[in-house]
């Protein structure tokens, strides 16, 4: 098990695009996920750690030792690829035992290890199957067993579940987490699914346009997005921008979209400010209180135990979350189009200027 540090890891491409510099620390035994939209560089970063990218600048430290110039096959890493990439000409056993074969393990030791992993992943009954006879879901388990066979120090997973349906995916997510916890193996996971990242990770690093936007536990990211991108990406809040008009006693009066909002925090008068409010911190009312802002009601979507209310605030979309069934029934029955909303002041998050 290993502590991994990416220090200023960077790669420039011939078309001018660039991934990095990436600064990231993965603690020993930690499950860290790289999360971000397509093209944000998460897979490339993972492949840089694996060693498949040439001409990488910066340093990559495994327990303090720089691995940037070490061949992939000598980094002692286990990896599961997006396409699963099992060896089609071998059986499941052959796939899992491939790593030990390459490392020259004895036959007994190999068999013992393969059976151990097969038990761990519940694929004992598949060992003699040909790869063509292995279904989705089973294939991912085989790939995981294959990656773990030689007791690697680091486990890398590149969107391994993206081809599966939701139920299977959720089941395997739990499995992966369970196994990782049991083996205490340092793991870096790549996904574009926020739900998946938040469900299984110790910490999540959000990537945007080739650099790390924010790293933290799921709660930290959700409650305190560091910048507009994170907030928008996580959908953790409705994002607003406005101009500070008054500063007094730890509160700011901000003019946004021709409406006044009071926000706790510090700032300079007449400067721009960006802030976000989580859906559950947006209060709506159909009785139109005087100093509340108004918006047009677009849709009400029922969810499990709550309602998602979509509003249009002069062109800016707002998502509010409410548990008020009666309010919803009223809104639906009288076809009211205009809604008043306000924010729970304490929960407004300033994102930056």
């Amino acid at each position: 098990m290993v502590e991994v540090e990416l220090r200023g890891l960077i790669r420039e491409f011939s078309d001018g695009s660039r991934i990095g510099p990436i600064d990231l620390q993965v603690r020993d035994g930690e499950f860290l996920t790289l999360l971000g939209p397509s093209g944000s560089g998460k897979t490339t970063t993972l492949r840089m750690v694996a060693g498949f990218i040439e001409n990488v600048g910066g340093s990559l430290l495994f327990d303090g030792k720089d691995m940037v110039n070490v061949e992939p096959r000598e980094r002692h890493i286990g990896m599961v690829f997006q396409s699963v990439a099992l060896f089609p000409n071998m059986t499941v056993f052959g796939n899992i035992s491939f790593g030990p074969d390459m490392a020259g393990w004895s036959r007994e030791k190999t068999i013992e290890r393969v059976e151990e992993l097969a038990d761990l992943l519940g694929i004992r009954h598949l060992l003699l199957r040909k790869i063509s006879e292995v279904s989705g879901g089973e294939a991912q388990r085989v790939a995981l067993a294959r990656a773990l066979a030689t007791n690697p120090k680091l486990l890398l997973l590149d969107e391994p579940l993206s081809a599966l349906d939701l139920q299977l995916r959720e089941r395997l997510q739990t499995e992966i987490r369970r196994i990782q916890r049991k083996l205490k193996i340092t793991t870096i996971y790549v996904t574009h699914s926020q739900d998946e990242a938040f469900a299984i990770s110790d910490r999540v690093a959000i990537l945007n346009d080739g650099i790390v936007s924010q790293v933290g536990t799921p709660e930290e990211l959700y409650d305190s997005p560091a910048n507009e991108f994170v907030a928008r990406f996580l959908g953790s809040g409705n994002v607003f921008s406005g101009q500070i008009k008054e500063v007094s006693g730890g509160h700011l009066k901000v003019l946004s979209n021709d409406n006044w909002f009071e926000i706790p925090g510090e700032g300079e008068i007449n400067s721009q400010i960006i802030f976000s409010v989580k859906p559950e911190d947006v209060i709506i009312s159909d009785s139109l209180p005087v100093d509340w802002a108004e918006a047009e009601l677009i849709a009400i979507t029922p969810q499990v135990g709550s309602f998602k209310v979509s509003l249009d605030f002069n062109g800016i979309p707002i998502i509010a979350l409410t548990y008020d069934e009666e309010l919803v029934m009223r809104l639906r029955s009288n076809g009211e189009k205009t809604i008043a909303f306000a924010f729970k002041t304490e929960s407004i998050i300033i994102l930056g200027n």
Partner: protein
Amino acid sequence: MNARGLAGYAVLAFPILLLTVFILCPVLIVTLQGFTSGTSFLDVVASPAIQFTIIFTFSQAILSTIMAVCIGLPGAFLIARLRFRGKSLVKAMMIVPFVLPPIVVVVGFLQMFGPYGVIDSILMWIQGSSSSVFNLAKGVPGIILAHTFYNVPLVLLMVSASLERLNPEIEESAEILGATPLQRLRRITLPHIMPSLLAAAVLTFMFCFMSFPIVLAFGQGVYLTIEAQIYNAFRIFDYGQASSLTLIQIVVTLSLAFVYVKLGTREDDSGPTASIKTTTFSRYRLAERCLIIGYLVLIVVLVLGPIATITRASVFDPMAQTYTFDGFTNLFTAGSWYLVNSLFYAGLATMFAVVLGVPLAIAIRSKSKTVPTLASTMILLPLGISSVTVAYGLVLVIAVPLGLITNPWPIIVVAQTIIGLPFSARAIEIAMSKIDSAILEQADSLGASRIQRLLFVELPLLAPGILVGGVFAFAMAIGEMSATLFIALPQNYTLAVAIYHYLGIRAFVEAGAAALVLVIICVIAFLVMERISKGSTGGAL
């Protein structure tokens, strides 16, 4: 069965019936009749000369296959892995040897590797000699080299296509699991390409086994394939020997065809073709770069050289060692009808090959149990049966009774149609398989009858495929030399046959000129094919 079903069967039965009349019957009749005269089968097999021929046929085919594989395999890796400008051009050019008639290959080979050819002239100049010092275009070396030339592109294209289908993440998995490049090659890459490699090897073997013009030209009458010996047997009227040898040939080619079909059913697709991992030339070390350049030089010399030097062959007289246009003048004055015959016979043959190819392709794709196998077999027949036997069968069973023997051009057309048919049917069948069935269902739901759907929906969609098939069939027909040589009287000579006769009387410049004309025609045909199929002609294989 209703009238429509009956009509459907009739359409499918029509080409099968024609093929039965024009291939199966003549060959069967000739073969069976042959066993009643001439040398008996046992005597044929016991004859030392025949035994030598049989052994030679096998050994040269094996040797040529080994060489084609050894030379083509590195190229397949280069094509699949190396990124360089003009790669699609090189891949396209690799298909040119297929459309070149073997007799043209002979001319190109003589010009490249033969006496007073390109290499010989260079060596003569270096050594200051005034007579030939280098001649590889004869005997066993000449035959094997020419066969290798013909088949290296086949190996290269088939294997590189398979390599490009290999999911790069599979190789990366192996790498991260600790495999060295050699181990990756042995455990992952080679097993992946093995089906394609074997298929290419089988095809190469079959081609070399059935080889005729190349062996006639370089064999010096001593080294013969079974096909060439069949040709001789007919010429000395020993039908028993001809039939016996034809039978031996059929047994071998049928077995090989069976193997080939079996290989084709093994899937070697390993999943989505993720971005193919290519590297640029600059990423290789110096030693590797030298190897790559050396290999490319070899390919240029062996494959592209003979094609390119045909230009020189058309104007350089090795006897007089001068450059002259006499070849062209003689060709177009005394031999003006060669070109006309070539175009006319091949043109007709192409029309028939296409017209027959459509119902045959339909038959291959039909859902019934027996029809597809029957149709596929009939199409493959011409590739596995001696062309000379077919030719003789046509003469005996069709030309003589119909009194065509004084001007047998119709059966020349039949023979050329038969040669072109496998290619036209295959191309059309591939095109059919690519039609989205949703479109056809749409036509059905709008009320179109089977015929209407065929004429107004399928055929227009198939047009590119039909054109590709037609052009391929044309290239095959115009280059056909085995059956045509056997049947043709002087007034029926095509360019291909004329080249053979010119070579026989050492009229090298005329042979070169005729070869150049054929090359130009074939290259034009090939470019048309590429254009229509937009760079996917290789798929027609």
